[in-house]
C-alpha cells in the first residue's frame, strides 16, 4: 500500500498526455531556445503560470509552417476565436493554494518541479506532487534555491557549495522560517 501510494501508477508521474496539437516543448524550448515566459507570461506575477492564447502561437506561425496540416487546429482556433483545449498535465488538489509567482520570485526554478521540459516532446509530470514532496522542500528550501538569473535555466544544476549558497540566498530572498513555511495554512487556507 505504502509503495503503491508512491508509485507512478497513483502519482501519474511520467505519463504523457495526448494534446490536440502535437506541440513539442523539446522543439520550442530546447531547439529554438524560447524563454518560458514568452508563452507562460504570468508566471512571475500570478498564481497561474498562464496558458498562452492562440495569438501567441500565431506570432510565429502566421509566417512559419503556415501551410502544414497539423497546425490547422491552431489556425482554425485563431479564425474562430475558439481556444485550443489543451490537456492539463499538472493537477494539484483543490484544497492546495499553490502560487507560481512566490516560488519563482523566491528562487525556485521551473525545472526544480517541472523537470527538463526542454527535453520533453510531450510534457509529462516529473515530481510526485504529493504533500510529502512539497514539504521536503518547504522544510529545507536551501537545497533548491537558485540565483535570480538561473530561474528559467532548464539545465541548472546545484553547485557543489549549494548548502552555503542556499543559505545566503535564503537570507537575500528573505525566506520565511521553516515553521511558517510548513504551517498548515500556508498552503491550505
Amino acid at each position, binding site marked *: 500500500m*505504502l509503495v503503491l*501510494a*508512491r508509485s507512478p501508477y497513483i502519482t501519474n508521474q511520467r505519463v504523457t498526455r495526448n494534446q490536440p496539437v502535437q506541440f513539442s516543448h523539446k522543439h520550442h524550448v530546447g531547439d529554438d531556445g524560447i524563454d518560458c515566459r514568452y508563452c507562460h507570461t504570468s508566471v512571475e506575477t500570478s498564481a497561474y503560470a498562464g496558458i498562452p492564447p492562440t495569438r501567441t502561437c500565431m506570432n510565429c506561425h502566421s509566417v512559419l509552417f503556415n501551410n502544414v496540416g497539423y497546425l490547422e487546429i491552431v489556425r482554425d482556433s485563431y479564425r474562430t476565436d475558439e481556444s485550443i483545449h489543451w490537456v492539463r498535465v499538472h493537477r494539484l488538489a483543490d484544497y492546495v493554494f499553490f502560487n507560481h509567482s512566490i516560488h519563482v520570485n523566491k528562487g525556485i526554478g521551473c525545472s526544480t518541479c517541472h523537470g527538463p521540459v526542454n527535453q520533453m516532446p510531450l510534457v509529462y509530470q516529473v515530481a*510526485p506532487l*504529493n*504533500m*510529502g*514532496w*512539497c*514539504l*521536503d522542500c518547504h522544510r529545507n528550501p536551501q537545497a533548491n534555491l537558485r540565483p535570480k538569473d538561473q530561474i528559467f535555466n532548464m539545465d541548472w544544476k546545484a553547485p557543489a557549495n549549494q548548502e552555503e549558497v542556499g543559505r545566503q540566498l535564503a537570507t537575500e530572498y528573505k525566506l520565511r522560517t521553516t515553521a511558517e513555511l510548513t504551517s498548515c495554512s500556508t498552503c491550505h487556507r
Partner: protein
Amino acid sequence: MSATPNLRMGQEPEPWIEPGHSYASVTDKISSAVLTRPVGIGWLAGFALTFSIVMVLFLAVAYLFAKGVGIWGINIPIGWGFAIVNFVWWIGIGHAGTLISAILYLLNQKWRTSINRFAEAMTLFAVACAGLFPLLHTGRPWMAYYMLPYPSTMGIWPQFRSPLIWDVFAVSTYATVSLVFWFIGLIPDLATLRDRAKKKWQQMIFGMLSMGWRGSARHWHRYQSAYLLLAGLATPLVLSVHTVVSFDFAVGIVPGWHTTIFPPYFVAGAIYSGFAMVLTLAIPMRAAYGMQDFITRRHLEQCAKVMLATGLIVAYGYFFEFFLSFYSGNKFDLFLTHQRLHGPYAPYYYALLLCNILTPQLLWIRKVRRNIAALFVISLVINTGMWLERFVIVVISLTRDFMPSAWGRYSATVWDYATLAGTLGLFTMLIFLFVRGLPAIAISEMRELVHQESHGNGGHQ
C-alpha cells in the same frame, strides 16, 4: 490455584457456587443457554427493542455524516460536549471487565470466575461504544486514519505531544488486548460447545473458533501460560487507559482540568462505574437464565464492596479538587468551584454528589449489599452519577474559561441524546447477542471451581 483466605473470621464462608453441582451440571447449565434453550419471548422482545434503538443510532449517525457536527449542541467555547462525556463514560465502564479478568486473576480471587466472561464482553462492547464517539466527533470520520502514525505521502505525522494521540494508542491497545484475552479465555469453552452442539452449523462455527482445542495436558499447559501472560499484559492497562484519558483534561490548562489528581481519580471512577455496570447486567442475567447458583449473592456483595471502596476514592478526589481550589488561591480555580456550586450547571453538580458520594454510603450496610433489588437501583444511580461527573468536568470548565468573553452555555440537542441512547441500545443489543451466542460464564473455570469447592480450599494443585 491456591486458597483464597477467608477474611470474615470465625464464620464459615459462603461457597462461591451453590452446593450440589458437578462438572456435568455446570457444563449443562451454562451451555444450554447457547445450544438447547429455545429463544424466549423475553429475549426476543429485548432484542427487538434494543435493535430498534440501534436503528436510532444509525439514523443519528447518518444525519450527522450528512450535516456535520453542527447538529450537536457543541459550539465554541464548548467544543467537546456529549461526545467526549460519553466517550469517557463508556471507556470507564469497560475497566471493571479488565480488572476482574486480569488483576483479580493475578491475585487468585476465586469470585472472579463466574463473572469474568461477561464482564470482559461488557468491556469490549463498552470500548466499541466509546470508540465511536471520538470518531463521530471529528466530524470527518473518514479522515480518522490521520491519527495513526504511518509513513504517509503527506510527509506529516500525528502530533505526538498531544494527549489526544496518546488516547488513540491507549484505547486501541486496550481494545486489542481485551479482545485477545477474552478470546483466549473462550477457547476451551468453545471446544466444549463444539463437542456438545447437535447441529452441523453450530459444530462448524464453534469448531473453527475453538482452533483445534482437544483439551490435552499440553494444551492446558500452554493455555494457562498464555492466559497468565495476557493477564500480566492487561493489568497495567487497567491503570493506564483511564490515566491517559484523564490526560486529555489534565494536560490542558483549563480551570478544573489542570490538576494532578485526575489520573488516580479517573481510574477509581472508571472501576467504580464498571462494577456498577457489572451489577446492572449481572442481576437481570442471573434471573433470566437461572444462574443464581453460579452468580451468588456473595458475588454481588463482593462487587458492592469494590464499588464502595472505589466510590470512596472518587469522593476523596472530589474533596481534594474542592480543597485544592481554595488551597491554591488561584482565582480561576476558585471561580470554577464557585460556578460548580452556584453556576448555571450547579444542579448537575449536586446530582453528581448525591449519586456518587451519598448513595453508595448505603453499601456500608450488609443488608443493602445483600438486597438484590437495592443493588440494582444503586448500580443504576452510580452509572448516572459517573456520567454526570464527566458532564460536570467537560461542560462547566469549558463554559467558564479564564475570560468572561470566552464564556458560553451548552445544551445538548435531540441528536446528542439520540446518539447517547443509541450507544446504550447498541451495548445492550450486543449483550443480548452475547448471552445467546457464547457461554456467558466460563465453563472450564467453573468446573475448576467445583473441584476446588468439593476438595476444600487449596485442595487443587
